[in-house]
């Protein structure tokens, strides 16, 4: 039982990261029906910008108050990656808005390769290591070890997700986003600035991805230019599992995938972990082709 609970804690941490990254995929898909393959790279950039700030001498003064330091760090990194997200849209996707969907997907793959290689050229191809920020603080709850960083990751992820959910469901801006995801032209007729909504999506999605990348860097302390792929593919799977285009779906899909992975690795075989996750994904899609919370969409591609 103790082992099961520990695995659950492990799974929730990984799942929170997947969920945050999955939100970026699902939001862009919801609005543009585009799979933003460069999103994993935005997540990776979060880690690299975070490391750059953390090691910059100017920043070390702020870290004297760790909480304030971390808050500023998160805001800075999220803002920087949000700018890159908007630029990515302007350069790689906006000129292709009226082109066939496949063209934009190819452009997304190109952007992903470009960002990966740019980071490799600037930061090198090796693994970079974060300084120790959160010291070894942990609690033992019934024999289960819970570290502070795991709690922070989970709480930050939940806060972001709840905040996003409220934004989309309860505000006028959210209503505009939901409208734009249904039909761009009709939304324009209703006076919604669709381009602004798209820009907003490319601010929020990358910012959440960057937060996830920064948390991965802070917790695991190791980042690499290729890490966007490993996490990106999992988060994408989580988005599909929950129903792509659906925001609560991405959250549930992410947490579910994290838990399935750890329990599969823990109780069946770590070697077969990915096979197990994808087998479950296939079963879910056979049972519900639109994902767990996905809505029926008339003629997709």
């Amino acid at each position, binding site marked *: 039982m103790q*082992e099961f609970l*520990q*695995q659950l804690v*492990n*799974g929730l*941490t*990984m799942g929170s990261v997947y969920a945050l990254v999955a939100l970026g995929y699902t939001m862009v898909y919801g609005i543009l029906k585009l799979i933003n393959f460069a999103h994993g790279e935005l997540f990776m950039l979060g880690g690299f910008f975070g490391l750059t700030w953390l090691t910059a001498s100017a920043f070390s003064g702020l870290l004297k108050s760790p909480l304030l330091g971390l808050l500023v760090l998160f805001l800075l990194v999220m803002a920087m990656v949000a700018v890159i997200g908007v630029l990515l849209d302007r350069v790689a996707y906006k000129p292709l808005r009226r082109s066939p969907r496949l063209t934009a997907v190819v452009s997304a793959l190109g952007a992903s390769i470009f960002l990966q290689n740019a980071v490799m050229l600037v930061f090198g191809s*090796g*693994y970079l*290591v974060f300084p*120790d920020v959160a010291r*070894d603080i*942990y609690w033992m709850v019934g024999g289960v*070890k819970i*570290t502070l960083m795991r709690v922070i990751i989970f709480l930050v992820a939940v806060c972001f997700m709840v905040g996003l959910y409220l934004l989309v469901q309860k505000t006028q801006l959210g209503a505009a986003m939901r409208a734009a995801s249904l039909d761009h032209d009709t939304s324009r007729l209703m006076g919604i600035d669709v381009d602004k909504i798209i820009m907003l999506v490319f601010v929020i999605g990358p910012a959440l991805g960057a937060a996830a990348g920064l948390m*991965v860097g802070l917790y*695991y*302390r*190791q980042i*690499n230019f*290729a*890490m966007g792929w*490993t996490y990106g593919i999992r988060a994408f799977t989580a988005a599909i599992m929950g129903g792509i285009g659906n925001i609560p779906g991405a959250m549930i899909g992410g947490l579910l995938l994290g838990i399935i*992975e*750890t*329990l599969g*690795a*823990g109780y069946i*075989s*770590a*070697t077969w*972990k*990915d096979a197990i996750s994808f087998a479950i994904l296939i079963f879910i899609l056979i049972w519900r082709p639109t994902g767990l919370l996905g809505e029926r969409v008339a003629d997709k591609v």
Partner: protein
Amino acid sequence: MAVILLALMVAAVGCGGGDQQVAEDAIKIGIQGPMSGPMALEGQGFLKAAQLLADQINEQGGLLGREIVIVPGDDKSDPKESALVAQKMISSNVVAVIGSYSSTATEPAANIYHEAGILHITPSSTATPLSEKGFERFFRTCFLDDRQGLFAAQFAVDTLGLSKVALIHDNTTYAKGLADWTRIYLEENGATVVYYDAITPGEKDFSPVLTNVKGVAPELIYFTGYFSDGGLLVRQARELGIECLIMGGNAMNNSDLVKNAGLQYAQGVLVTTEPVPTDLPYAEAQQFIADFEAAYGTPPQSIWTLSGADALRVVVEAIAQTGSDDPAVLAEYLHNEMGDFPGITGPITFDEKGDRLGTIHKAYEVDAEGNFVPYEG
């Protein structure tokens, strides 16, 4: 500068083999390896070692009263170049060829030397399939990965006195192979493998695997993958409260391991690996390293340089003992008669496939400063 000189030397010998004043009855031994390109250090190491030993023997009147001539060949560690070098070696009438460095470059050359019936010894190509082709004149002075598994198992059981081992690999051919061999030898030595599974390289969270490992309470975790994952694995194991010894294979032998794990966690981690040249305990090794330094100004940088020297010494020994330069006779001697020849890298005995018996591996430990130091117990 030394590189340029050596390159010129290679070029001179390579282009003008016929012009050289070589005694008619000289014994020619080819040295094939990457003399230029990113791995040049290794090929030049072979060449320097062989030239040094050949000069020593020639000064003392040669081998069987005949001069030893070293014929270098630069294959840039490239399989296509390797085939060309092999053809060139054959037309220079060498008795034996030592090389190449990487397994990819050794493979095409091995086929050509086999057809030409030349004795072929590689000092450093460890890929298992090379000796599975049944070439009777192919030998290696390096040890295959199964030897590291043997060492790891014996070290865990005999030196550390442990019997419950968890094996973790990363599903790459190398790491899985090493884990499999270690498992076989552990069980042969009476230890129990209480856990055997793989992590996914590049993934940052290994706590699902480690939570399981903690449940089976091993006395030793042996991780056969690479340092980048290994560092995180060590840290996460300690964070989960796993207190047992952690040991890695030779892919963990990298100073970045300490960075990735954090010094307080990395300290005390063991690795099984080929020793640093100066850590070899044999008198032959100390002698060779001293001679090498006297001749070239720096001690040998790579363990493969010493392995290359051993390859030449083995050929010389076979020629001296049999009084023949017929590769068939020499191969016969190396397979069946030579046993525990005192090599620089330890006693040399070849099995029926031409692979080397015994182990060269050694255990290193991360000390309080984060350096890898020989394990003292």
